[in-house]
């Protein structure tokens, strides 16, 4: 039981502007469940991609069952028994469960044709052994997310995986399903000697399922030990590495005047009777579990999605926002959740990205003045500490934090004073996070703008927001006062009692 099956030693991985993994070392014992915990952007996913052979580490080595792996590639790692089950499952939705389990290596008949009968029978045997009740002939897009997770595990086991990595399965599984998954993990680890790496955000799960835990912070291992030797308080301290309140600028008093008033906002099947308001100089946080409608509220207010009912008032006047263009005209700007697919023009320059939605003031006689544009953008680059070689550099080459700042700069350049930000610090390093916090406070306290912030990082919501709207299943579950709220009170409202 004490034999080491996997060891990663001195792993370094650098991206432009970010040292994503800094001298990461840890060991996993055969038949154990090894937990990984850390804030968003701590490096967990990067580390697992290195383990899967999808990323090349700049330095360091991977040792499996005592043998160093010379050049890890995805194929090689699969052969060596590493199976990584990502959050976004990499499945072929139109194929059947059996086909997915044997993807790329379906059994053949003597004529070289696919032996469907054997494929189904073997798939059924694997699923049966794992105690999964899934029909091998069912199409992937007809089964639940939890069942898909099961299929992925079955696929790993069918390949004789020795180490299975689960990347935040609890993000997509319900309680009962999670319990079932845990039972499976326990059985496989004890009876078959399969090792698991279990990545999560939730401390509680670590204590339920893990034997050891490694805490990552800013790309470094800050602690690695048996779970029995830790306490929740220790782990939180390791994860955060500082008193939470310290990195947030002091909260200024918000104004009295209501700028944005959302009344009974509804969108069929997604949002129901959402009401809250935002005052001048105020930051309002929106919290809730994934799928609770947080992002959808922002999109509806910004005009990105149609609404079916309710009213939005700005400065007391009802407005109808038909499309993001209208939103912008009313001074409402949206910083979307996924900056790469919804926010930025990655192959265009910093200047292009900053000025694109308000070119009017840079034009004279219908033509854009390059000089005026460069000046305006340079000013933002300086003020916001955007690290870029030039305003003409392609945004793709910047780090996550600097990309995000470009997105915010666009809103400021467009003169929005009701800023809707969706996960503004996701995938952003700590220094840039602090800059973004400072910026949001500067905007509200300094310039009287109003901010609505969706975030799944409760510390930042607690540290920045004057009030917190907690959502649950498309409705507002509670509106809390920012200074009195705790992670526990927020979570209590966010989940069903």
């Amino acid at each position, binding site marked *: 039981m004490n034999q080491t099956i996997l060891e990663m030693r001195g792993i370094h991985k650098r991206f432009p502007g970010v040292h994503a993994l800094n001298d990461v070392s840890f060991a996993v014992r055969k038949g154990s469940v090894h937990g990984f915990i850390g804030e968003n952007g701590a490096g967990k996913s990067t580390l697992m991609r290195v383990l899967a052979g999808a990323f090349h580490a700049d330095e360091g080595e991977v040792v499996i069952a005592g043998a160093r792996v010379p050049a890890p590639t995805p194929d090689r790692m699969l052969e060596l028994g590493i199976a990584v089950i990502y959050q976004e499952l990499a499945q072929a939705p139109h194929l059947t469960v059996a086909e997915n389990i044997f993807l790329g290596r379906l059994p053949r008949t003597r004529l070289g044709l696919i032996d469907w009968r054997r494929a189904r029978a073997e798939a059924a045997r694997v699923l049966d052994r794992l105690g999964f009740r899934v029909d091998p002939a069912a199409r992937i897009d007809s089964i639940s997310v939890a069942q898909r997770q099961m299929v992925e595990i079955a696929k790993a086991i069918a390949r004789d995986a020795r180490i299975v990595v689960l990347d935040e399965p609890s993000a997509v599984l319900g309680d009962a399903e999670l319990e079932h998954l845990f039972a499976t993990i326990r059985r496989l680890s004890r009876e078959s000697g399969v090792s698991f790496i279990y990545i999560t955000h939730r401390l509680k799960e670590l204590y339920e399922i893990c034997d050891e835990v490694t805490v990552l912070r800013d790309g470094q291992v800050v602690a690695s030990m048996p779970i029995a030797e830790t306490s929740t308080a220790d782990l939180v301290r390791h994860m955060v590495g500082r008193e939470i309140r310290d990195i947030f600028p002091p909260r200024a008093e918000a104004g009295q005047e209501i700028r944005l008033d959302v009344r009974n906002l509804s969108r069929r099947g997604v949002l129901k009777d959402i009401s809250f308001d935002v005052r001048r100089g105020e930051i309002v946080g929106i919290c809730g579990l994934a799928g609770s409608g947080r992002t959808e509220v922002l999109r509806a207010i*910004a005009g*990105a999605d149609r609404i079916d009912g309710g009213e939005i008032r700005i400065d007391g006047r009802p407005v109808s926002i038909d*499309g*993001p*263009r209208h*939103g*912008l*005209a009313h001074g409402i700007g*949206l910083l*979307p959740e996924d900056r790469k*697919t*919804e*926010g*930025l*023009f*990655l*192959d*265009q*320059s910093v*200047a*292009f990205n900053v*000025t*694109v*939605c308000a*070119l*009017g003031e840079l*034009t004279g006689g*219908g*033509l*854009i003045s*390059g000089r005026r544009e*460069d*000046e305006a953008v*340079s000013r933002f*680059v*300086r003020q916001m500490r955007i690290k870029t*070689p*030039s*305003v*003409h*550099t392609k945004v*793709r080459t910047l780090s996550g934090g600097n990309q995000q700042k470009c997105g915010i700069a*666009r809103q400021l350049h*467009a003169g929005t004073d009701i800023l809707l930000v969706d996960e503004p610090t996701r995938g952003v390093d700590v220094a840039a996070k602090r800059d973004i916090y400072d910026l949001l406070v500067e905007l509200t306290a300094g310039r009287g703008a109003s901010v609505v912030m969706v975030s799944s990082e409760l510390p930042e919501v607690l540290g920045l927001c004057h009030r917190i709207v907690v959502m649950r299943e498309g409705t507002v579950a509670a509106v809390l006062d920012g200074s009195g709220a705790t992670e526990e009170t927020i979570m209590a409202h966010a989940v069903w009692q």
Partner: protein
Amino acid sequence: MTEMTARETSLAAPGAFARLRSLAQSLGLLWVLILLCAFAVYLSPSFIQTGNLLNVGRQVALFGIVSVGMTFVILTRGIDLSVGSIVGVVAVTSALMLASGVPIPLTMLAALAIGAAFGAVNGAGVVFFGMPPFIMTLGTLVMGRGIAMTIANGEPKTLGEAADAFYFLGGGFLLGIPVPIWIFAAIAAGAFVVLRYTPFGRQVYAVGSNTEAARLAGIPVRRVLMSVYIISGVLSALTALIFVSRLTVGEPTAGTNLELEAISIVVIGGTSLFGGEGGVIGTVIGAAIIAVMANILNLLGISPFTQQIVKGAIIIAAVMFEVYRHRRRS
């Protein structure tokens, strides 16, 4: 204060460098063109005879005008396969109008309007019905040719008495240079300014780089898409007028395969089929490269059939280079 200005220039200076580099990329293409021309002269001194050069220039202009419109469409990540058929429809309708005594200016306006209408249909299909541009314009390609054939009953239409007066547009000279070349120069220059220095141009690039981000940034995506297809349609109609003027006849088959020429020119000119990258300078040089290449192959006495093989290979090479660049980036 002085320190601030210093920092500002330090930020802007590498920008000038980046611009130089993108210019150098077009210049790289320009070198290809220059080498081709040198090769042509080496093959046959008659290449630089005025008559031959003007012929090449005329061809650059004809294909170039349509290619400029195609550049707009491709920059938005679209494609317009219907350009050749628009040329066919406009060729026969304008010939019929002229022959029946409609004044030249009115005929030209009507012709451009027909082009715009075709473009609007393409744009509407893409914008309001979510049709993939390839399929939408494939449909109008086939329909357009059918319309041209139906109107003309499958036969070339002569211009009647208007032929002489109308000849200037496609066959005339201004300061010793054929009129179509002037027209092309004006259009290319205008398109260059629009794409590089106007908000509309920026929006074209924005839509092509990331349509969803463009929409969320408040860019009128539908209007931009409508506009580029209309621009492409109008420039196709203009090309048709030049054809008809020079040939003094409106053929329903005019412009057949023109879409392939235009797409090749735009792609060879370095505009990305993935949208959001490229521009008009490349297209102008691309048009020249294609024309000079054809001229060289003619000078070498290579059969038109073999020429097609060569041209196809060049298109594949150009796109391969483009795909390779994309892959290296991601």
